[in-house]
């Protein structure tokens, strides 16, 4: 059995690869956007996995813990703080992309990226 950290790293990698595949090869613009949200989630999961510590505890300092024990056990809380921001940014970018996609659908009557974005000039 592989350990949890490695498995989580692998799955975050597969989220990124699935997302990249969708963003590059799938024609439908909504699915492209879904793929981009997977890339975002994979990157977030990668950061969280970095902070993980096997047999660790949640980084919340509770009464009754000594600082030495807490420092030797707790997960690294800095990436958690970073990811919180990054999740919100990802959601807002997604909302803007969907809004533009809706405008483009009204203009071209299609969700296909090759039709919507095809004309270069």
């Amino acid at each position, binding site marked *: 059995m592989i350990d949890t950290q490695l498995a989580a790293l692998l799955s975050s990698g597969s989220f*990124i690869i699935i997302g*990249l595949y969708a*963003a590059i090869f799938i024609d439908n*613009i909504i699915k*492209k956007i879904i793929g*981009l949200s997977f*890339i*975002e989630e*994979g*990157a*977030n999961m*990668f*950061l969280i996995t*970095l902070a993980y510590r096997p047999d660790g505890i949640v980084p919340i300092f509770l009464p009754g813990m000594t600082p*030495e024990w807490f420092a030797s056990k707790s997960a*690294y809380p*800095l*990436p958690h703080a*970073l990811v919180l*921001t*990054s999740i919100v*940014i*990802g959601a*807002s*970018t*997604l909302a*803007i*992309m969907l809004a*533009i*996609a809706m*405008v*483009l659908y009204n*203009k071209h009557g299609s969700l296909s990226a090759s039709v*919507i*974005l095809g*004309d270069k*000039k």
Partner: protein
Amino acid sequence: MNDLIPLMVIVPIIVAILLNLFSKQNTTVKILSFLVAIVLPIIPILSNYGLHYFGGHAPLIDNGNLLNSLPSYISDGALSTFHIGITYSFESLQRILLFFLFVVGFLCILTTLGERKRIPGSYMFLMFMGLAAVTAMLLSDDIFHMYIFFEIAIVAQVGIVLASTDDLKYEVAMKYLLLGSVGGPILLIGIGFLLGLVGSVNITDIVYAVKNGLINTSSPVFLFSFGLIFFGWLYSVGLPPFHTIKSSIYSKAVPSGSALLQALSVVIFISLGITIFRIYSSLPLLEVFLIFFSLSGMILSLTMAIMENDFKRMIGFLAVGELGYIGLGFGIGTKLSLTAALFQGLNEIIITAILFIGFGVILYLTKISDITKLGGLIENNPKIAIIVLLGGFAMAGVPPLNGFQSKLMLIQSALNDNLPELAIIMILISIITFMTFMKAFHSIYLKPKPKNLIVEDVRVPRSSIFAMAVLIVICIVLGIMPTLVTNGFSGFVGGLI
């Protein structure tokens, strides 16, 4: 007065939110945005050099009482010098660049106020938000903080493009945003690798760890993080393979918006570029990568610019091509070349603003951007023609304008570093840039007027002329007295190498 440092970011953000609230009241929007835009350039001048620790979280070594109470493996090791909170550092580079960025921002906002009867508050919101975002990127000493404001800057740029009246703005904005949502997470993963190696996202700490051998700089993880962050940087600044999308972004926005977009891009270029240079300067790959991508960016954009008949797109390509000079300066990597690169970046902000606003006047008068259908406009407004010509001279590097000084410094640094071929390529590219610009200038202003060309009988807004005049005065002053800014830049670079 170190307390003023965070205000440079906070004031534009607060004003942006207020403007969005008062979006319906036209007069309020106008007065508020004008007043704040005029106040902004004063803040960097009044503020003192120094560091600002958010939340008062200074490094442990500055806090004697706390340090003594900690176990010795923290107080004696490198950990005690690490920065705990987000840190803003304000030095000579930041002061000069931010002052000119805010001046250009003010002039862009002024031009917008002059050209439009009704100003939507949301458009002003985006302009101030973009300014705040790049200011935070330039000030920040924290690479993740940079990433957040990088994403905000992308969204603000997309918004500025969407505010124009061009037919294809949605398509271009969508493409830019799609690429941005790939580039952003890739930058984030690169930051994640650095975080995994060092355990901190503060750039000074990372540089400390690299310099003192705390991490293995030949490990694949370090190289991989370099690749990912470099990719994110390429996207954000529009070097190949992203030069086409960047130039179409410029060509789709309102001209005064494009001037601001270029200023934002240059500041992102410089702030992320300095970060990359500081962290990865030990890698021999860095120099090769920077020179290769900058050169190919210059050459590809110029070849596209020569073929172009639409002057908006042409200026867009020229603007992207000029960015390559900054990259070359970073790539050569000596003290002189870095100073020259920073000076060139500053000049670029000013010169492209002149060109965008100047050609924007043509668009305002004729609604045509195809140079084959234009001609003889020098009769209508000779003043603007002369200013635009001077701007083109400055871009091409004709003495005594500022472009000449920075390009001369770049060429000298290339020669000093035994890279004469780079110097020759820079001179050639400068000549081709000038030729392309003169082609556009000739067919817009000097060629006989086509019969079916209708010039609308409206007065050119006085704010546009004022903005261009101020910018050209800055060009001439910097051209005659370059030491005004280069002293500050070389002082900053001296602390860097």
